[in-house]
């Protein structure tokens, strides 16, 4: 087996055992409950406060009248992002705090293999979380036609990879600033408000729209909704998808290269 995959496999196994022994269900439950509420709140507001009225500008920008499905799609992508960022993004800094990273850095193991391993370990979990949120959404009245399932599956894998790329940059930021709280919450805030999870990006002030284009999730999410809500095909959205891929690769490259370049400084700065 190639060293990258050997490392990835080892990291997956290790993380799996630790997760299973340490907190088998709590974080999973916490996130699922949290995201179900995050659907229920806007939906209730929509039903009971706005009485199912949506503004014209929303309809114009979102290309749909169906706010419920719109938000269910947004939140289900959001949960993949949160799940991936929390696992892959925090994996390394957690190890630094527990004092277990030194031996990894001592070894010649593939660094990208490490990130891949932690990604694979949480992949199924985040898929499960996604499906649960989607099912709750459908129960609440979101309209998702059965024939769209394959395309949803494709999109979800794509989104998950996009989040992986973001997670590597976030991991590097966390590791070198020794901060998790601010970094993580800044990213969650950005994803919630400027990537178009709850409302179309076009409703934002202009300058924020530019920033939102710097997040790879924005265009991916837009393409996703176009295909599910707007009955477009993948081919119709290839520009959005290509754009999202390029930005993702830029995130990945910056995160990974910076990490490799200053890897040795890391041990110097964690003075134990």
């Amino acid at each position, binding site marked *: 087996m190639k060293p990258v995959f050997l490392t990835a496999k080892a990291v997956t196994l*290790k993380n799996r055992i630790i997760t299973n*022994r*340490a907190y088998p269900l709590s974080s999973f439950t916490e996130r699922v409950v949290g995201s179900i509420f995050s659907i229920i709140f806007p939906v209730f507001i929509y039903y009971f406060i706005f009485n199912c009225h949506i503004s014209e500008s929303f309809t114009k920008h979102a290309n749909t009248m169906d706010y419920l499905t719109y938000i269910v799609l947004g939140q289900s992508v959001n949960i993949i992002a949160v799940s991936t960022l929390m696992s892959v993004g925090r994996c390394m800094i957690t190890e630094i705090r527990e004092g277990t990273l030194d031996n990894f850095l001592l070894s*010649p193991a593939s660094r990208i293999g490490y990130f891949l391993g932690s990604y694979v370990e949480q992949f199924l979990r985040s898929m499960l979380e996604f499906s649960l949120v989607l099912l709750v959404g459908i129960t609440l009245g979101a309209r998702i036609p059965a024939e769209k399932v394959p395309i949803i599956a494709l999109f979800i894998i794509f989104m998950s990879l996009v989040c992986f790329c973001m997670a590597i940059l976030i991991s590097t930021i966390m590791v070198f600033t020794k901060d998790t709280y601010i970094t993580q919450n800044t990213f969650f805030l950005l994803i919630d408000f400027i990537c178009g999870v709850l409302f179309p990006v076009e409703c934002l002030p202009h300058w924020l729209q530019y920033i939102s284009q710097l997040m790879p999730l924005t265009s991916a999410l837009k393409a996703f909704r176009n295909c599910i809500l707007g009955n477009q095909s993948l081919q119709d959205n290839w520009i959005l998808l290509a754009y999202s891929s390029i930005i993702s690769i830029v995130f990945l490259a910056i995160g990974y290269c910076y990490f490799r370049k200053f890897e040795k400084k890391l041990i110097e700065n964690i003075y134990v």
Partner: protein
Amino acid sequence: MIQAKNLNKIYKIKMKKHIWNRSEIQYKEAVHDISMDIEKGKIVGLLGVNGAGKTTTIKMLSTMISPSSGTIHVDDIDAVKFPFHAKKIINLITGGERNIYWRLSARENLEYFGSLYGLTKTELKKRIDYCLSIVNLTKNADIPVEKYSKGMKQRLQIARGLINNPSYIFLDEPTLGIDILMAKELREYIKRITVEENKGVLLTTHYIAEADELCNYIYVINNGKIVSEGTANDLKKLYTSNYCLNFIFDCYNKSLFDDIAKLENIIKIELNPELHSIKLISKENLIKKIIQLSSNYKCNINQIKTEDSLEASLMQILKVGNSHA
């Protein structure tokens, strides 16, 4: 062979008094112009007080941190430029209990660390069984590490450091927290693999006897500089102007003991009436005088031991070093 030339390490420490102040940068020279060789088949010791720069030196040699200047060659590999080539044939064992996964068992830990070195499944299994047997953990291999005692965790660290069958092993206080029996076994093991498997070993320790027993060559560092080097015997000869003597008599004679205690040039003396023994450190060789005295009192000497103490000479080296600084 590992060759380190003119290693320097300057740490940058950022200090912030208050969150709104700009951080003040301080520089700390932890290692200054250290050169050393580690040959295969030899154990090299690195001695010095706390904060002397031992760990910093070891971390540079093991490619964990980069030197501020200087070169390191591991078997002709430039370890500063190509650390990933060097990493394959070295390993580092440190004292302490962190550094391993407490929720995993010993075997799971070793499986993980072994895979990081690219070992395949069958190689890994063989190597793990071997490493576990060396540190005597085979029986407890499948218990989570959190249930281990401190010494068992330390032994697992040692097994981990051997997992890739390294050509060069760095040991940073490896016997910290290990009981005397295990420590003895470990020292024997280190000696054995050094000779039989032709490995190069660099060892730091605060147990001087350990260094004396194991090391073929010793570097003494203080304030980041090498202040003395040589074999243990060289160091003892160079710096010990003191004599360390041990007498056991066949009976206890108070006036004899009193007379001996009154001899000149004694630095330190321990009298033990129950064992009829005297232990003393003196500036002059007192054997003749003591034999003379004891025959005066018609008291037989059962045993005389003379010792050069590495500890005594180290004290002296460090004192000299500090007075220069």
